[in-house]
């Protein structure tokens, strides 16, 4: 094993593990790429370093200059990845965080010295984006990387995650991942389709719960600019909702094969299983999925050990995706 100069050099090159023991279709392999192995603990480390280094290249941030402030809306993992990168590079990070994220997400932000600005939990991630945009407009001296609109986000996956998957698994037929900013699916998806246009892209979403009830009109809804710029609608082949109960059931099933993953990874696995069920018998297929993060940040939810109906009710009130 090489000795790395910096923790930041540990980002990426994550391993894949065969989870076919959970496949409902004997002709379909399911492989999981373990993004929880990144040093900040999630797939979002990839975009954190990509966003910051792009800003440095563009001159928005100057390495070594004191008192530079970044602001970003995040329900957790991007904030945590950015907090780690900013701590190492000496930037001050403000994270606009919905009040209803798991306690561990907040604690990790504090570990790396990020300043937390709370947005109303009832407004979900949309509320965090809205508040952050307003604060960034009022404080033009702050650097707003804006993961939902910054092409350095999908670019990280186009340049790294996609090629890693292709190198390890050129037989891939389906890629199944979560849809948030859409960065993973847009970046990996575009790369994989360029190698083999037959690769199918499945996007997994959590249900809206009560949070969309806060919208006053449809225009308050929000389509990430990255999704529009990358022509997401043409790129994706399927978009499907996985509900909290199924997400937690599959989070538990993954633990049966030794994989201790976050709840969104359970949702994505549930989506991969649905995908496998739709592949006709006798047709060989290989599904690659993304494990977004490990389970550590969700221990407080009782996801593995407590009564599933209670856990589901709890999950509906927090942001886990």
């Amino acid at each position, binding site marked *: 094993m090489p000795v790395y100069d910096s923790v930041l050099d540990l980002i990426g090159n994550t391993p894949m593990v065969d989870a076919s023991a959970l496949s409902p279709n004997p002709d379909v392999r399911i492989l999981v790429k373990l993004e929880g192995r990144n040093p900040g603990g999630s797939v979002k480390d990839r975009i954190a370093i990509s966003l910051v280094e792009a800003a440095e290249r563009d001159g928005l941030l100057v390495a070594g200059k004191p008192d530079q402030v970044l602001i970003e809306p*995040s329900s957790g993992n991007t904030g945590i990845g950015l907090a780690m990168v900013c701590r190492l590079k000496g930037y001050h990070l403000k994270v606009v965080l919905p009040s209803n994220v798991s306690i561990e997400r907040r604690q990790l932000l504090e570990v790396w010295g990020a300043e937390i600005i709370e947005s109303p939990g009832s407004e979900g991630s949309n509320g965090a984006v809205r508040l952050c945009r307003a604060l960034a407009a009022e404080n033009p001296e702050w650097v707003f990387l804006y993961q939902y609109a910054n092409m350095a986000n999908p670019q990280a996956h186009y340049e790294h995650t996609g090629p890693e998957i292709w190198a390890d698994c050129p037989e891939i037929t389906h890629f199944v991942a979560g849809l*948030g*900013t859409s960065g993973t699916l847009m970046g990996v998806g575009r790369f994989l389709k360029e190698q083999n246009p037959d690769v199918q892209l499945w996007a997994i979403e959590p249900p809206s719960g009560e*949070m969309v009830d806060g919208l006053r009109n449809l225009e308050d809804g929000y389509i990430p600019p990255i999704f529009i710029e990358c022509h997401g609608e043409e790129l994706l082949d399927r978009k*499907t*909702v996985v509900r909290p109960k199924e997400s937690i059931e599959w989070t538990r099933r993954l633990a049966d094969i030794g994989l201790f993953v976050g709840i969104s990874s359970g949702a994505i696995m549930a989506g991969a299983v649905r995908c496998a069920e739709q592949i006709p018998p006798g047709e060989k297929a290989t599904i690659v999925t993304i494990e977004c993060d490990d389970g550590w940040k969700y221990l407080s939810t009782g996801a593995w050990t407590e009564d599933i109906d209670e856990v589901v009710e709890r999950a509906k009130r927090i942001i886990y*995706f």
Partner: protein
Amino acid sequence: MPVDVRLPTVLRSQAGGQASVPVDGNTIGDVLRTLVGEHPGLKGQVLTNDGALHKFVNVYVNDDDVRYLQSLDTPVKDGDEISILPAVAGGMGATAEG
């Protein structure tokens, strides 16, 4: 056979306050056109004036976004659950991978 179409809070006032409306139709397009016909307040909110799906809404049949099935031509059968939802970051409101 009518299917139930679930409406988001933001659209319910245009449909007599109902959370769910029974509508007849063999495709998603049929169902939405009938829905808008019966509740003209929804015009321009669900379908555009050209009859396309409005960009700010997502329509799901049994949890699958119809844009990635056959869009307005997606067939509808008895017992299907249809939901109209505002398009929001991270798929849906509460949650985003961000």
